[in-house]
């Protein structure tokens, strides 16, 4: 079996973060929660990368920091993670900006509702029949107001 030492625990933690992020991204219905799941997943991958450079008993890769001649950890994954963090920050900031616009336009961040409104608006713009219907599901939970589908026999707009 796998020995339960420090590095193994961290490694399992990194994989766990990645999986939580992946599960959240697929399962969440709110755009902002999907973004947070993405942030968690990115943290997991960054941790995984740093672990790839860890050397047991070594010191930081700064000359003059540890005792002279001591082994140092691998500096390259640290640079990779620095880059990955900055890239992640850029993408997350842009995601938040776009979500602000989406919220201003639609008043909601719910993925299912946005998809319905998307289909209707694109269909209206293109002049084709929208997929699906505007009637709420049985049990009386109406969807938010969307333009009604023309009735059978009526002239199409």
């Amino acid at each position, binding site marked *: 079996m796998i020995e339960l030492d420090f590095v193994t625990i961290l490694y399992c933690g990194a994989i766990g973060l990645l999986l939580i992020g992946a599960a959240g991204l697929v399962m969440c219905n709110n755009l902002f929660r999907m973004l947070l799941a993405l942030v968690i997943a990115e943290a997991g991958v960054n941790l995984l990368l740093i672990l790839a450079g*860890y050397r047991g008993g070594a010191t930081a890769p700064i000359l003059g920091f540890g005792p002279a001649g001591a082994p140092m950890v691998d500096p390259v994954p640290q640079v990779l993670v620095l880059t990955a963090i*900055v890239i992640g920050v850029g993408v997350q900031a842009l995601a938040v900006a776009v979500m602000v616009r989406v919220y201003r336009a639609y008043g909601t961040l719910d993925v299912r509702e946005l998809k319905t409104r998307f289909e209707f608006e694109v269909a209206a713009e293109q002049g084709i029949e929208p997929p699906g219907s505007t009637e709420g599901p049985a049990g009386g939970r109406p969807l938010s107001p969307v333009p009604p589908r023309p009735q059978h026999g009526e002239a199409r707009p």
Partner: protein
Amino acid sequence: MRNVAAILFTGGLGFLLLVIASQLGFGEPPMRVGQGILDVAATEVGAANIVTSVLLAYRGLDTLGELSILFAAATAAGLVLGQRRASAAPDPEAGFILRAGADLLFPLLLVVGFYIILHGHLTPGGGFQGGVILAAAFFIGVLARPAESLDHTAIVVIEGLAGAAFIGIGLWALLADGEFLKPMLGTGTLGTLVSAGTLPLLSLAIGLKVGSELAGLMTSLSGTEAREP
């Protein structure tokens, strides 16, 4: 149904990754490139912080790419958000604690930010980290007094010139020494502030660019950006 599929997917992925990881030797990395860099970084580049020497010298092009990604994100956010709506009510001014705190912290954050930028080649730090602190310094001022917005022109000009300076140093190395982003100006004495050639200059350029960029991004997000002239 979607949840079941999601759980199956993540379960499968998790199992796969755990199986693989048990075979990888974490704790004893092969260190092919890492050991090579550790051996020669002091003499080739001259920075005490080997991570910075990898960031700015050995993998300088990656850093340029990373800088461009941040720039692209800020530009795209500016494109997406557009101008502040003229009809929007101005945000209320913050309370006394925030205003006084912002006034006190602003010079301190500036000093800390520049310290971290300039010492990036000696201790952990560098352009990106210090740049974020600089951006925070300006942004708490905006949080405290939303009516006083940051000057958009200044942000754009500093951002553009700092980025051009980074590329300019690289092009100078190309023209003078034959390779883009080759460290110039010698290595200096290890451990002093003036060492590692052009690395502190690159750090400074990165710090200014990131600082102005993030400040601009945060203000456009909060909607307090000044109108275009």
